[in-house]
């Protein structure tokens, strides 16, 4: 780390209709420095970085970027091309990869002249190999990106930026989709790269990694910068107070006695397309007033279990029972009708219909209800009133309930889904990675709502890679590995960690 400044954001502002996403934000970044950008969901972190990278045109403000010699130059705004040329690379919160072409093509896209008929693949391969060796990041180069895992895709995204000789790398919630092990490797790689002079801005909601890996912290709240400090002077409490503007209440957890079984799986197998959605002879029971935590390293059959419980996968063997009734032909509709509420893993694609309004998304699972429709016609006013009430109760913030749901920030999309699920007072709740990408306040809110549902008598299946989350909420823990489930029989962090890794406890 040196005192040399490589990036200056001066008074950036951006509004989307009535929403002020950024208000007069200024930041600086030093050479080799790691700056963590924090803030609640919807605070404007992604918007700020999108202005730096040229995706959004700021309403006011300027950006200056240093050339390799260290002199600052103003950056033409609104052109990703200009940002790339100035050495700014960005890894987006939602990956910007074409899935039908391979990693090499994604990486070299845009850096070769389009109209020449010949490509120098050899040179590109050599350069990528070289970058992989220097940074420690690797990803298969010659299969379509659609077939790569999330972790691999993210490495492709970073390689993309480094291939363009990025000197400033922006990572928007890089660890939200990674397993803890993958996240540690990523930060180790980042350390290697910053030692060579790369400067990094990363956005994260996980304070543990922010405190462990950043040099400096900047906090946004409602679009304004409300604080900046050296990481060495920060602690969880101060940061949390800055982000939320108040103390976050601790989630209180009371003891409960499990009731009758609400979901029973007996020797159920699912033949998936890959290891992530395959189950082998799974047996489990969830009772009323009980949260069952499913711990495991991602890709070990969690998707299969989630698909099964939400009725998206048909079992090849075994029996499923909800309450007392056996479900002979599971489908999404029968499972919803049986009283299962699902909080899906991929909230953007499976949780909402992005092009439909927030209000419509809130009633999408009960379009048959008489309060929502009469004689097949939707009751607009009822839908609107319902949405306004729910948005209030669940604190869904954004451009309003009439706006398309995809315009919400990631955290607010999750709140929308929570509102929809909990309103139906389901018998069983399937929560798959429910706090991924959520800020601390929102994550605590999810926990509070799950406990509330448990208190009301619902059963909860909580699938998570975050062991702390499971330990904090679950009454009982099972470990999933290679598509099989085993009772953990313990609440011991270390022992469960070993079981996840497949070693005898």
């Amino acid at each position, binding site marked *: 780390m040196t005192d040399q400044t490589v990036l200056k954001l001066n008074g950036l502002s951006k509004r989307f209709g009535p929403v002020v996403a950024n208000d007069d934000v200024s930041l600086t970044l030093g050479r080799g420095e790691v700056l963590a950008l924090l803030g609640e969901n919807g605070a404007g972190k992604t918007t700020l970085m999108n202005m730096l*990278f040229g*995706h*959004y*045109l700021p309403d006011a403000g300027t950006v200056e970027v240093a050339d390799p010699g260290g002199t600052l130059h103003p950056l033409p705004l*609104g*052109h*990703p*091309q200009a*940002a*790339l*040329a100035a050495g700014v690379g*960005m890894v*987006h919160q*939602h990956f*910007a*990869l*074409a*899935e*039908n*072409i391979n990693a090499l*093509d*994604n990486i*070299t*896209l*845009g*850096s*070769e*002249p*389009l*109209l*020449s*008929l*010949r*490509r120098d693949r050899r040179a590109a391969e050599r350069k990528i190999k070289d970058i992989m060796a220097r940074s420690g990041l690797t990803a298969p180069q010659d299969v379509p990106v659609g077939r790569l895992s999330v972790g691999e895709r993210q490495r492709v995204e970073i390689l*993309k930026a480094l291939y363009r000789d990025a000197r400033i790398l922006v990572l928007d919630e890089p660890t939200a989709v990674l397993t803890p092990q993958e996240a540690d490797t990523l930060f180790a790689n980042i350390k290697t790269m910053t030692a060579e002079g790369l400067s990094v801005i990363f956005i994260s909601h996980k304070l543990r990694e922010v405190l462990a890996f950043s040099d400096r912290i900047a906090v946004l709240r409602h679009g304004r910068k409300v604080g900046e400090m050296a990481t060495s002077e920060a602690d969880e409490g101060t940061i949390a107070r800055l982000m939320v503007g108040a103390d976050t209440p601790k989630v209180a957890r009371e003891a409960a006695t499990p009731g009758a079984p609400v979901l029973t799986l007996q020797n159920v197998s699912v033949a998936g397309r890959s290891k992530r959605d395959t189950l082998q002879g799974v047996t489990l029971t969830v009772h009323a007033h009980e949260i069952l935590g499913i711990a495991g390293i991602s890709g070990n059959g969690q998707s299969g279990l989630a698909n099964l419980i939400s009725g998206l996968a048909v079992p090849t063997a075994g029996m499923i029972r909800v309450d007392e009734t056996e479900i002979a032909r599971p489908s999404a509709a029968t499972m919803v009708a049986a009283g299962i509420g699902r909080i899906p893993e991929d909230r953007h694609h499976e949780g909402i219909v992005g092009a439909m309004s927030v209000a419509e998304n809130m009633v999408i699972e009960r379009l048959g209800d008489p309060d929502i429709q009469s004689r097949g016609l939707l009751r607009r006013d009822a839908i609107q009133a319902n949405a306004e009430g729910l948005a209030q109760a669940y604190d869904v913030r954004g451009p309003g309930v009439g706006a398309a749901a*995809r*315009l919400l920030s990631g955290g607010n999309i999750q709140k929308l889904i929570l509102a929809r699920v909990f309103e139906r007072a389901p018998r069983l709740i399937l929560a798959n990675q429910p706090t991924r990408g959520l800020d601390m306040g929102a994550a605590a809110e999810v926990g509070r709502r799950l406990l509330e549902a448990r208190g009301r008598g619902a059963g909860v299946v909580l699938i998570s890679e975050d062991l702390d989350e499971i330990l904090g909420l679950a009454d009982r823990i099972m470990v999933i590995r290679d598509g099989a489930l085993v009772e953990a029989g313990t609440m011991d962090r270390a022992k469960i960690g070993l079981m996840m890794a497949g070693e005898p406890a």
Partner: protein
Amino acid sequence: MMDLLNILLSESFWAASLRIATPLIFGVLGALICERAGVLNLGIEGIFVVGAMCGWMAVWLGAGLWGGVIVAALAGAFFGLLHAILTVPLGLSQHVSGLGITLFATSVSYFTYRTALPNVSSPPRIEPFQALDIPVLSDLPFLGPVLFQQTALTWLALLMVALVWYVMNRSALGVALKAVGDNPDSVDAQGLSVYALRIWAIVAGSALMALGGAFLTMSAFDAFFFGMVNGRGWVCIALVIFASWRPGKALLGALLFGAFDALQVRLQTEMGALVPGQVFLMAPYILSIIALVIAARSADYPRALLTPWFKGQR
């Protein structure tokens, strides 16, 4: 049964199949380029008509055969540009715009033809492309008569298959086209223009479609008639799916359809007394639908097909 075998083994049958397939090859390639970039171009049927009319009229006015080909391509490109402006930067419905282009292009062509030739009863003829005869090669058994009965435009179509294949699979442009049809954000994030890529793809694809029309008036026939395109454009839209957006399979699909059609004509003459002629006319379409049902199950649509993209929006 013997008759069917005789037909399938005859040189004239395969020569006819290739001839019938030629306009479809141009059309499928054109539609394929547009759709790979993420835009459905239902203007294809009208663009065929424009190509047929403009190519023919240019030759009739003395531009020469290759002059006619160029005029047809430019006219197709023009209507493609119109579709591109409506669907790419303005992001209007691709179905509505495409059908509008078809209606508009068809009527403008007929209108121009009628205005230029108000009182002719039989359509004026031009001297069309002749079979390319390459001395030694055309003496080859079987292949010689099949290939060397074809005109320069059929050869151009085959050349285009190779060219489009090369661009799609070997060039940086092809990579960018596939990417923009899969996830426009990936292209934008790498500093390329989504708008420019899509617009140029539609313009180029439409120029190719127009060549399919030009083949009809300048090679298959020697004059322009109303209704001569007769749904060939729509067939191409179906064939693209059959081809799963690959140039090689597009050639195969067009040839298959050409073969069905050639077979249908021959069966009609052989068995016309037993079965009504309409059944034979339907046959190629029914068989295409069956082929499509089988092929479409595994079809991998370009993910961003039909979805407009706007700069600076989520």
